[in-house]
């Protein structure tokens, strides 16, 4: 809370993803592509294969343009965006890992110079010298992954660093090695997919046949390494995190499942490329590339979202609230800790407590979640944030601050009765009322499902339960809906009880 809050209407997650996904994709491609270029060049020179050398020269021009410009600059862009979106977490990283980043910078300098020399050196350098520069490029590009991997994985699994604060404890954390192996596999896979795209543009010929077959082998080898080490990565994440994710976090689990299905699809298509290389159509290569992007995007989404509620596990919550200062926040509240104030206390509290993850009606919107409710209900939900599905950070401010955020939200939601907003009645209205009033914590057939407790209860019993809801468990709010919603909700709860009976 030492920083101003950037009040952009776009969700922070989207802003981050736009830059980060482009960068991680290109940066991994830059490593794998470097290896592909030099290994293939070596092979072509040994076989005295001018067609392949010409293919590689073309490849390296586009490769240099994409990696040196968009790749490098979106890397700098990640710095810019994390400083804007979560300056507190960036400060933690910069103080702890500045020498890691400085080391990566030395590799980056060599990588950039090598890429330029490699590209400009095709016609000017001897074969041996050109290959040497190619190897230097790949080695230094991969070394920059070796470094940045330590910092990325630290954020999810800081390991013993939480006790020692030691650079190396955080760097060589529990997911460091599986992530490094997996990302290396991804590099190979992306290089293969990209080269397939270029090769697919060639007319059917012997050259195309052998290039597609050779390149598909790269993609397949990378995919196998990445898929196997992804399992290793999953196992290396502390069980407390994965168990919570399986139980209550849909986003990372969905993303994980996407990676599995996409890996299968990529694998099948690559096998087809191996079997039918001569006439590989560009459309298939494009689909492969899109799948590769989607696979990697899903993995990054998994990695980012499974870290919830933290930005640095066990150390800092996603909204920049430091775990170590929990007592301080509980005592004095958030507002006292907010360094930059806008003059609107409720807005400041909302920004710092909620807005890093939620917009009002865009990305992860709060308005639809609270439309048709009331201040008391919203405040109760805020106070119990730690219990909500999705693994939210706890609300550490004071009760009065929760009321102020509730007031801020209440002023911005739809005040009409729920029935009017959703234009439903009867059981359907009851289901909607359940989603709004109960579904944030109790998922039917899933997390904290309480359907069993409705078995055999009459409408009066259920109505009575609603009257005493605040006393039914930790964080339960009072039922504050109107009479129409109550009747509909009770009817819906009865159907839940009956479904259990069946």
């Amino acid at each position: 809370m030492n920083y101003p809050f950037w009040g952009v209407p776009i969700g922070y997650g989207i802003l981050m993803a736009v830059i980060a996904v482009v960068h991680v994709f290109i940066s991994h491609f830059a490593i794998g592509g470097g290896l592909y270029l030099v290994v293939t060049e070596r092979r072509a020179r040994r076989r005295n294969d001018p067609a392949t050398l010409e293919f590689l020269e073309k490849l390296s021009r586009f490769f240099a343009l994409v990696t040196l410009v968009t790749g490098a600059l979106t890397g700098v862009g990640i710095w810019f965006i994390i400083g804007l979106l979560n300056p507190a977490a960036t400060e933690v990283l910069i103080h702890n890992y500045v020498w890691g980043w400085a080391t990566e910078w030395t590799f980056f300098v060599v990588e950039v110079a090598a890429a330029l020399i490699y590209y400009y050196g095709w016609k000017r350098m001897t074969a041996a010298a050109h290959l040497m520069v190619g190897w230097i490029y790949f080695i230094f590009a991969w070394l920059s992954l070796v470094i940045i991997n330590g910092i990325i994985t630290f954020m999810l699994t800081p390991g013993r660093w939480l006790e020692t604060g030691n650079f190396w404890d955080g760097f060589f954390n529990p997911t460091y090695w599986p992530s490094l192996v997996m990302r290396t596999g991804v590099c190979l896979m992306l290089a293969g997919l990209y080269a397939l795209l270029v090769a697919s543009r060639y007319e059917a010929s012997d050259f195309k046949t052998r290039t597609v077959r050779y390149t598909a082998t790269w993609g397949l080898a990378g995919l196998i390494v990445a898929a196997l080490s992804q399992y290793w990565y999953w196992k290396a994440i502390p069980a407390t995190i994965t168990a919570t994710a399986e139980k209550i976090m849909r986003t990372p689990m969905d993303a994980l499942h996407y990676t599995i299905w996409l890996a299968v699809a990529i694998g099948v298509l690559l096998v087809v490329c191996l079997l039918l290389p001569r006439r590989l159509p560009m459309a298939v290569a494009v689909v492969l590339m899109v799948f590769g992007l989607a696979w990697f995007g899903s993995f990054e989404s998994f990695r980012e979202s499974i870290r919830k509620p933290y930005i640095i596990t066990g150390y800092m919550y996603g909204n920049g609230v430091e775990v170590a200062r929990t007592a301080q926040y509980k005592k004095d509240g958030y507002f006292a800790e907010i360094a930059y104030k806008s003059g609107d206390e409720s807005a400041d509290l909302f920004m710092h407590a909620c807005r890093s993850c939620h917009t009002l009606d865009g990305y992860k919107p709060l308005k639809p979640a609270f439309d048709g409710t009331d201040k008391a209900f919203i405040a109760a939900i805020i106070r119990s944030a730690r219990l909500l599905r999705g693994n939210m950070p706890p609300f550490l401010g004071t009760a009065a601050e929760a009321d102020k955020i509730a007031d801020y939200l209440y002023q911005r939601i739809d005040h009409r009765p729920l029935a009017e907003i959703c234009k439903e009645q009867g059981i359907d209205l009851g289901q909607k009322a359940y989603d709004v009033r109960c579904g944030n914590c109790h998922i039917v057939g899933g997390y904290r499902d309480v359907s069993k407790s409705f078995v055999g209860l009459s409408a009066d019993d259920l109505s009575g339960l609603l009257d005493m809801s605040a006393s039914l468990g930790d964080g339960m709010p009072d039922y504050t809906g109107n009479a129409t919603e109550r009747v509909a909700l009770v009817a819906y709860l009865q159907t839940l009880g009956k479904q259990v009976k069946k």
Partner: protein
Amino acid sequence: MSLPNYEFLPAPLWLVTTLHLVTLTLHFVAMNFLLGGVIIVLHAAIRKRWDDPTLLKFGRLFPAAMAATVTLGVAPLLFLQVVYPKQVYSAAIVSGWFWLMVIAAVIIAYYALYRAAFKGERVGRVSKTALVVALLGLLYVSLVYSGVFSMAERPKLIHTLYAENQSGLLWNPALGDWFLRWLHMVLGAVTVGGFFVGMIGRNQPATYQTGKQYFVVGMVLASLAGMAYLLSLLPILPAFVHTPAIWALTVAILLSLGSLHFFFKRNFCVSGTMLFVSMLGMVYARHTVRLLKLAGQFDPAAWHVASQWGPFAMFLICFVIALAVLAYMFRLFFAANKGAA
């Protein structure tokens, strides 16, 4: 369990500051070559001052210069953030959109420079449109940097601006803070660009003459802008003249004049060295201005230091290896060129 504190410097302040100042000066060398070079080449191309092959030769150098500018710009930004995270991030957030668009501007400028280089190779003449696009991108970046980094030195202004608007669409309203600073930087880039044009084009009389003119005129104008900027710092000027920075600045000015003298004598090595040391002196003087502006609000010496010597040694070793590898690769490349010639 007590969690680790993150509010520390991972090396003594003097070390981080030295690394910041040295890498920033290196960044300025590359940036000045690029920005000044683009301005001069564009001007020459419009006025048809040089023959096309010479212009194309410069055009081919710009993408590599851009790569060097970006690469050498990463390190000083890194070291700056270690010491001044609260100031820099806060100022960046207030001007968030302008700050973020720096990336888009650099990408556009970069591709425009590549386009100018590739098109030049293909059609045999400079693409003025591409160079204009690149120049606009570079000027945008320089403006935003001047605006944001000047604002970072005025925490109270950041508080006031933030209270007015949180959208990240605010520009530094203290014109006196950033405009003269920016102007001095751009004119300085033209000066250094003139030096490089003269040095690279030393065998073509027209090119050398143009470089010389830009070097001289740029230096005069940059000095005037620098002087005006210094005078705009009136509130801190009395304190400034009592710091070692005033001597650094004096030596820097003398070295600039010296570099001009040796440039006329066509001793580019001595001239260039003097120019570099002069820039280092000015960067140090500017650093002192930052400290004086922040005095009473933030003192970098107050940071708790918890040195990470192991990781620092890793950086140092890798840095030396990187230099050696760079030298080796350039030797391979230029040896091949010499052979080809």
